[in-house]
């Protein structure tokens, strides 16, 4: 290796080791983020309070109610009043089920009985989930009791292909890796770069005749090593805490992570080169990082839902492709055939970002107007 690059790399690692802030950024905060994101984000809704007004009070209506609360999705509301609508108004229940007085009579007579369901629509997404779920429970109840005609012409029998147990951590945790391994390596690299400018040590570097590429490569290598250690710690503990293991060939993840870290570090360097102060760099990196890795990457919201001009932005977010690689490794397990292209995209992003940083630092001279 070029001696200048090595000197730069060693110096960065020494500085990294001495600074408590950067050590915290490299190991403590990523773990905290992993725990917070891993435990806090739950898309599945459970224990939804539901108030049931059973005006029928027959064995059949009671068994319907029991069936409703048989899973942990719904639970009886603590509400004791008469009017179920009031329970919704007060927020004591998310849904109200009103069983009419003629419920069992009409069913026994072979007629259609109607149940009124009121769903709190404040949270539109949840309301849809509650409605579908109540619908399904009702159908299941009817089929179980033999109250429907078994000779339906078409019956869709669904089975979940990946993640058959619908274990939610399998979906969330690989995404958390993408967020954490983007934000923190880029922050570290940006701080390492902008600090030289802020403390004016960059002048000494300019005067030494080292090239922009050499300087940035030295810094990038140091933080690539730090990022690697971070990835090892975060992914290792993540697997233990959330019980996620490899579903297939881990090599695409290995290569993909290295490329992804390179991309994050280059992004940090680029922002570090372009910012005048540590404050600006940290805010830029974290704002852009969280917006893109959290919201435009498919971590929580499906990429396909992002509307047109924003979807273009989403298309160039490296986290989006790394999430695919990471979910493949932990959930799908298809290996290289499934994600080769995504790994390539992440690699290209790293090269482009690094080239942009080099170009920005350019001739290793003072900016116009910054020299005084």
């Amino acid at each position, binding site marked *: 290796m070029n001696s200048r690059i090595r000197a730069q790399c060693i110096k960065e690692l020494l*500085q990294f080791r001495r600074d408590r802030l950067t050590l915290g950024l490299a190991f403590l905060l990523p773990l905290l983020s992993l725990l917070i994101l891993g435990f806090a984000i739950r898309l599945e809704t459970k224990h939804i309070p539901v108030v049931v007004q059973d005006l029928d009070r027959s064995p059949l209506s009671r068994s319907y109610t029991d069936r409703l609360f048989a899973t942990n999705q719904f639970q009886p509301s603590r509400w004791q009043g008469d009017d179920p609508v009031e329970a919704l108004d007060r927020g004591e229940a998310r849904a109200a089920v009103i069983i009419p007085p003629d419920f069992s009579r009409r069913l026994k007579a072979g007629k259609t009985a109607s149940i009124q369901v009121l769903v709190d629509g404040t949270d539109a997404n949840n309301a849809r989930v509650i409605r579908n779920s109540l619908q399904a429970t009702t159908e299941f109840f009817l089929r179980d009791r033999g109250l429907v005609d078994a000779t339906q012409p078409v019956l869709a029998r669904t089975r979940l292909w990946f993640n058959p147990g619908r274990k939610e951590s399998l979906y969330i945790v690989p995404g958390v890796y993408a967020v954490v391994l983007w934000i923190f390596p880029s922050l570290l690299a940006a701080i390492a770069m902008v600090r030289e400018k802020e*403390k*004016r040590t960059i002048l*000494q570097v300019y*005067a030494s005749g080292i090239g922009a590429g050499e300087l940035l490569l030295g810094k990038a290598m140091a933080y690539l090593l730090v990022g690697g250690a971070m990835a090892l710690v975060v992914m290792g503990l993540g697997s233990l805490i959330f019980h996620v293991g490899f579903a297939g060939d881990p090599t695409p993840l290995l290569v993909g992570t290295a490329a992804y870290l390179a991309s994050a570090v280059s992004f940090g360097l680029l922002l570090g080169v372009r910012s005048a102060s540590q404050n600006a760099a940290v805010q830029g990196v974290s704002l852009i990082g969280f917006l893109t890795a959290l919201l435009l990457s498919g971590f929580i919201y499906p990429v396909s839902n992002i509307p047109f001009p924003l979807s273009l932005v989403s298309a160039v977010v490296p986290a989006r492709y790394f999430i695919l690689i990471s979910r493949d490794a932990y959930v799908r397990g298809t290996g290289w055939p499934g994600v080769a292209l995504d790994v390539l995209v992440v690699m290209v992003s790293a090269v482009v970002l690094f080239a942009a940083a080099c170009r920005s630092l350019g001739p290793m*001279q003072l900016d116009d*107007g910054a020299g*005084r």
Partner: protein
Amino acid sequence: MPRSSAAEPGGQALATGGDVVLDVQALHRSYGSVVAVRGVDFEVRAGEIFGLIGADGAGKTSTFHILAGMLAPSAGTVRVLGQAPRQARSRVGYLTQTFSLYPDLSVVENLRYVAGLRRVAEGDFRQRRQELLKLMGLAPFGERLAGQLSGGMKQKLALCCALIDRPQVLLLDEPTTGVDPVSRREFWDVLARLAGASVTILVATPYLDEAERCHRIALIHEGRIRQIGTPAALKRDLGLTRLELRCPERARAEALLEEASGADGPAPGGIVDVQTFGDRLDVLVSDAARGAAEVRGRLAREGLAVEDLQVTLPTLENVFVTRLRQEGVQSLPLAFPRSGGRPRRADPAIAARALSRSFGGFQAVRQVDLEVGYGEIFGLLGANGAGKTTTIKMLCGLLEPSAGEVSLAGETSRLRSRELLGRIGYMSQRFTLYDDLSIRQNLAFYAGVYGIPRALRRRRIDWVLASCGLEGQGDLPTGQLPGGWKQRVAFGAAVLHDPQVLFLDEPTSGVDPVARRQFWRLINAFARSGTAILVTTHYLEEAEQCNRLCFLVAGRSVIEGTPSAVKAAQPGCLFELQVPAGFDQRSAEVLRRHWEPWRVSRFADRLHLVLDDAGPELALVRRQLGEAGIEILSLRQIPFSLEDAFIGTVQRTAAAEAAGALEAEP
């Protein structure tokens, strides 16, 4: 423009000089609409120490950036070692204005990093590291983090870093800012040694005592070079003589002589300039004999006594102020608008007895006694970290002393009471003005803070503007003012409430000689009206302006008295000797072998030597140099500067303590 000396090839430096190493011609540099450098020409030859002297914003740093190849000139040609600066980078060492060190790396790690950047082979690096750390006295501190070094040590380490690649050219941008006098002298001795080894050195400094150590200097002001030549030639070319006048009524004498001096040239009596300088007046005259007679005559006519009148050489400060004044307006301080007169008071304004302060196990201030009377300018001197700021904080009640007593304006307790604060003024090192407010808004803000009566408010603000030469420009954004003006406005803001006691914490850092002189006129005017003034500074040159001073070293006061008394109390005498060109390095080495190293120091092509007993010791020096085959061209006794007095005292104390420690051992 007085550039006559630029054309003059004389000066002993050029006799030793070889090839032109730095060649700067018609250099311009602008940033947007701001022009930093407007047509600079100079040449520096191999082995020469060339000084760029000027205030903050004069264009020094831009010139350095261009020579270091990290900034492109807007126009003009620059050659370094015959190449474009960018190509020559590997043969140039650059010491930037702020320490270009990594505080979280150790001394050796800093060196290793720079060596790596500059591709120094491992073997060479090990050898040079040993050599350099030993040369700078840093060898025992290799593992210490750079952030934990003192200012002087940091600067020496930065110099080591710049030297690790054996550069042929050294660019040093204000290398001794915040460095204590002993380290500063050592630093300059290293520079002299390097120049002796044919390294070309370009050094920028705002301080004129350092300029004396350069072979040649250029005064740079507002992006142009105004003067260039050897320090001796510049002083000679001024064609003036300086009279040091000591008399009881300095204020009246100054006013009297000021009247007799011509603003645009020598008046009939030959008096060019008068300035209060601490406990004396400096009078510049065109002819020594005639001028002295004129001064004595004028003072005698008014019945003023003359204690002492010495004829000496002009200083570089005289040169620059005289030259620069041709463009600047010199205004006399206007009377400060007061509602009534101020009573003269005999009790001390500031008094401290056995003042001590420790932080944990660290003794920041030890047993300091001082007393400042109303109307007196007292200088508190010391390097960064000597305890100046801690002392000031205790004196104005911001910090509780660990031991000792403080009395401030007659109060001994409750030093932070509102009533007392109204009688105290404070101006800190960093001008506490808001850059985004106009000058008038800034002043109005402080007038409001101090609760100045409305009737006086407007008049006082107008006084500040007028005494700063800023009439009619009160609406200018403060951020646009150059350093010297800003500093005077800040001073104006600090005295708006007419304080009885004024604390000035390093008020003149980064200000050019003319602005500095203007500033001291303001300070003197306040002192005359009965204000007690305590000034801190780490530059001994500035201390000459004080009536009395005390010097802190490691929290202890080592010298106290008037500048003249301090210098007079220094035992022994100082000799300046000149040896043939090329022999200065060797003669310094010879002398250091026989005498304690601090007694020998190099000033450009001359040597300064401190002897305790001139008679026999001088003969010894002659013999020692004679045995080494070195001829003495000239040898004369010169007066001690405050720096000499300080270094002598510190070294003698250290030697006495070491001897005491040896005796104490069983």
